[in-house]
């Protein structure tokens, strides 16, 4: 038994009708929720394409419904998972394409995720980000895992659940890991 599974969109069987069922009324709420998440959590350069990304991802849902006898209900959690897979596949495709085009343009400066940073803050944020990534690589693995989750805005309690460790142990690892991170950043001249 595993606690994870792969969700795949199976190839369309030959001879089936190709028309997708119409969107359902209750899709609107789900679509709005997913759009909000994409806008707030995706890289900023993708924000203007959020609606297109979500629309493309929803096509997967329509396909899925068409192939599943149409009458059953799919849970919103399952639908989100399907949409998520489609979204990440597409985002990765765009990221790869963008990376290759930027290489051709020889080092364009990119915006940062922090809200409306000035040039100095943006530069500082970039340096801190790179420093954090480098410093994380030097942490003991348990501390690295705990701090990485915390830097991803995961609460300590939730981190404990995701890591499978007890709360006290996890809190201790985060605390010590952040201390290590602070020292490492200082050593790099990056004062928090």
């Amino acid at each position, binding site marked *: 038994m595993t606690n*994870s599974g792969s969700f795949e969109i199976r190839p369309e069987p030959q001879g089936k009708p190709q028309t997708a069922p119409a969107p359902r009324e209750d899709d609107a709420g789900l679509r709005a929720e997913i759009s909000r998440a994409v806008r707030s959590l995706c*890289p900023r350069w993708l924000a203007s394409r959020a609606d297109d990304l979500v629309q493309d991802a929803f096509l997967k849902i329509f396909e899925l419904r068409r192939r599943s006898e149409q009458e059953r209900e799919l849970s919103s959690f399952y639908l989100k998972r399907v949409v998520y897979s489609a979204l990440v596949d597409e985002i990765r495709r765009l*990221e790869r394409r963008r990376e290759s085009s930027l290489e051709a343009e020889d080092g364009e400066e990119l915006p940062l995720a922090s809200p409306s940073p000035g040039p100095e803050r943006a530069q500082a944020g970039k340096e801190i980000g790179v420093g954090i990534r480098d410093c994380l*690589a030097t942490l003991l693995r348990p501390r690295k895992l705990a701090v990485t989750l915390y830097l*991803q805005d995961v*609460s300590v309690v939730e981190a404990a659940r995701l890591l499978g460790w007890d709360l006290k142990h996890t809190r201790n690892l985060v605390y010590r890991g*952040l201390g290590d991170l602070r020292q490492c950043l200082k050593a790099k001249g990056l004062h*928090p």
Partner: protein
Amino acid sequence: MREEDGPVVRWRQGFAALGERAAPGPDCPEPDRLWAAATGEAPQAERHAVFEHMASCASCAAAFRLARGLSREETESAAQVEPFPRLHPRPWLRWGAALAAVAAAVVLAVQLPGWWSRPGPYRGGEVREIHSQIPEHSLLPRAQADLRWSAGPSGSVYEVRVLTREGREIAVESGLAEPRWQIPPSALAAAPSGTVLYWQVKALPPDGKSLGSKTFSVRLE
């Protein structure tokens, strides 16, 4: 520790900012693996592997944040309100904050029942969660497809749903007094060998506060 810890806020922003320049690499986990790690569905070692990868891969870190954002409604436990320990903690503040977090957690746990929501973690002062009792990587015998899970609060009756990977419900049972149930062979007749089944349990204790499991999976023999 949250907003009062300015450095950590900046660190988070800096870490997230790396995602603006990110591109996936050949070792990046598939989206499904990221989702399973972000929601806690994946086995522990798998989750750890994904989190470690995320420490050095800004693209996957961004994808993880998206998974968290999308799955939050279902997976976010009341524990989200738990404040982070300060870098230089003051014990009386820490305990006060912890007590406030527990109180808030109890309130949220009561407000978030339902099939797909995470179970309320605090009941009677104990963390309660329904776990699968089927060993990892075992195959489920078709003729004796017994599902077993950890018991809920005393006096609970259980509801079970079994779904295919496409989300189609193939079996459901309710009113179970024991934390186990055998999927009728007739429900599995159309499922080929090796099919992955997804199943969920909801415990209904006498106090009426239902407790839902996460979605487990098992491969059919």
